[in-house]
């Protein structure tokens, strides 16, 4: 049967929307290949000079490692906190726990610029301004709700009979947690860890407020690169940033598919 007008309209609409969403990100790829010394679309000639410059510049490499350190630490901390929190709220499961949950999701709802100002005000007296710890803590506060959401989603699908079965077979609460509940919510934990990493990896607003000289993350260097000179190295850095994010997503997709193959019944 020939697809009707409406379904064709739907299909075209979907592609247009997809293009609308990804084009801004993809623009960085041709720009990073330009031969010119300023941000521009390449005209027939391509070069990898900006990638070369990116990977040979000690500043860019240092920023890359700083971002990775902060991102991984944030991911680790947020995952631990978010998972414990999700399990705790799931356990208690009353109307009060829902209030607590709503409260914990606030960092997602509050505009980041407000959070940024709050961190700035708070971090000064605590001496955390412009330090790794300060940035990691701030990013962790922003990222923990994401983990809370993904782990809670996994727990919503968790069959409470599995917990009963474990206890019935003689396992303590702790053993049940370690051997039955945590393995069952692993996909949610992984997804949360990934989201937390990505949030920190490309976070700029809070970073601009609370870092200055000591900490210089990749997004911050890109920001300065664009503001001070229109160096296409920024585009090359953007491509690397996107590539790493994509790789992380693909890895998590493979992991979660393998997980669901194992656990689906």
């Amino acid at each position: 049967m020939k697809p009707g007008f409406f379904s064709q309209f739907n299909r075209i609409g979907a592609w247009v929307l997809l293009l609308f969403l990804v084009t801004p990100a993809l623009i960085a790829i041709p720009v990073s290949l330009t031969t010119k010394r300023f941000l521009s679309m390449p005209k027939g000639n391509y070069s990898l000079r900006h990638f070369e410059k990116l990977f040979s510049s000690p500043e860019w490499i240092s920023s890359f490692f700083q971002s990775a350190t902060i991102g991984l630490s944030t991911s680790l901390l947020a995952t631990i906190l978010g998972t414990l929190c999700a399990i705790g709220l799931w356990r208690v499961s009353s109307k009060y726990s829902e209030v607590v949950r709503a409260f914990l999701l606030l960092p997602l709802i509050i505009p980041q610029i407000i959070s940024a100002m709050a961190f700035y005000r708070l971090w000064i007296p605590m001496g955390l301004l412009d330090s790794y710890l300060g940035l990691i803590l701030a990013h962790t506060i922003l990222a923990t709700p994401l983990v809370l959401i993904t782990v809670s989603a996994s727990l919503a699908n968790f069959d409470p009979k599995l917990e009963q079965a474990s206890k019935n077979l003689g396992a303590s609460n702790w053993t049940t947690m370690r051997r039955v509940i945590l393995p069952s919510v692993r996909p949610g934990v992984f997804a949360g860890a990934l989201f937390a990493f990505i949030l920190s990896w490309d976070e700029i607003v809070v970073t601009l407020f609370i870092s200055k000289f000591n900490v210089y993350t990749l997004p911050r260097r890109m920001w300065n690169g664009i503001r001070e000179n229109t160096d296409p190295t920024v585009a090359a850095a953007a491509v690397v940033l996107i590539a790493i994010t994509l790789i992380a997503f693909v890895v998590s997709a493979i992991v979660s598919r393998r997980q669901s193959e194992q656990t689906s019944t």
Partner: protein
Amino acid sequence: MSNSDHTQGSLQLTDLSKYFGEFCAVNKVSLEIQKGEFLTLLGPSGSGKTTLLMMIAGFVDITSGDIALDGTTIVDIPAEKRNFGMVFQGYALFPHMTVRDNIGYALSVRKRPAKEITERVDEMLELVQLQDFANRKPNQLSGGQQQRVALARALCFAPPVLLLDEPLGALDKKLRVEVQQQLKDIHKHVGTTFIYVTHDQEEALSMSDRIVIMRDGAIEQVGSPYDLYEHPATEFSASFLGKSNFLRRPDGLYALRPEKIDIRAAGNGGEPARLTGAIKSITYFGSMQRIIVSIPDGDELEVDIDSWRNQDPLHEGQQVDMLWQDIAAVKLAEG
């Protein structure tokens, strides 16, 4: 293979009640369960049978009354320390573990040596005939195989009491009959007390030593399958376990099983008919036929006869005589 050490396994329930707010889920249940017995809690949904099982397992707190194992109260012992095996509705197998790890879980959380666990799991795999599936994950097994894994997992640590919550509910009918026989064999083999919850009266009749019929949270009647079928005490028992016709007589209400009625074409002489009527419908079931007869006072009577006896077929609309022996009609208590 010896399972429980046979010194444990009798349960005493005394005036056991459970309220959820105002709602009474279990109402003053008192019951003595013998060691090694196959006891079935039978009732429609909402009759409190699963709640009662969950109270014995320790997953539902009791409101009042007492549960004792071999005379010692266990109401203060948490579920994980009660040492009762349980087969859950839907099995509740751990999806991320192999069959072997599922079955060995209880021993492994008890920190038993690896060698002992391996040997015991091998024994259990043999008992449920799943030796070739030890390294599969639950989702790679059929429903019947999953059910057997759940049984092996619950029996692996030799519990004195095994609780089964509608364990065959998810299986299709043909498989269910097969698994009923296996369950019975395993019960005989291990000698553990089985407490079995079901709403399926055929299951209850074919497997149990004793059946407890439950209604609205209370015990309606307790007895062997034979007792309950032949001598139902109430209208509820008579209609829930098997089918029954009810006859109102001057001295009370009587239950009459459909297969205990003899039916013949009207006016055929011989013994005088106890009731006469007209055939409303005949339904053919292969080995038997179900005949619905309209009787003069407007009621209907159901008569089951073996198909081979209906050689000269009765037909719809025909006038028939019905006869039965005195003992076939059972007088019921009316409350």
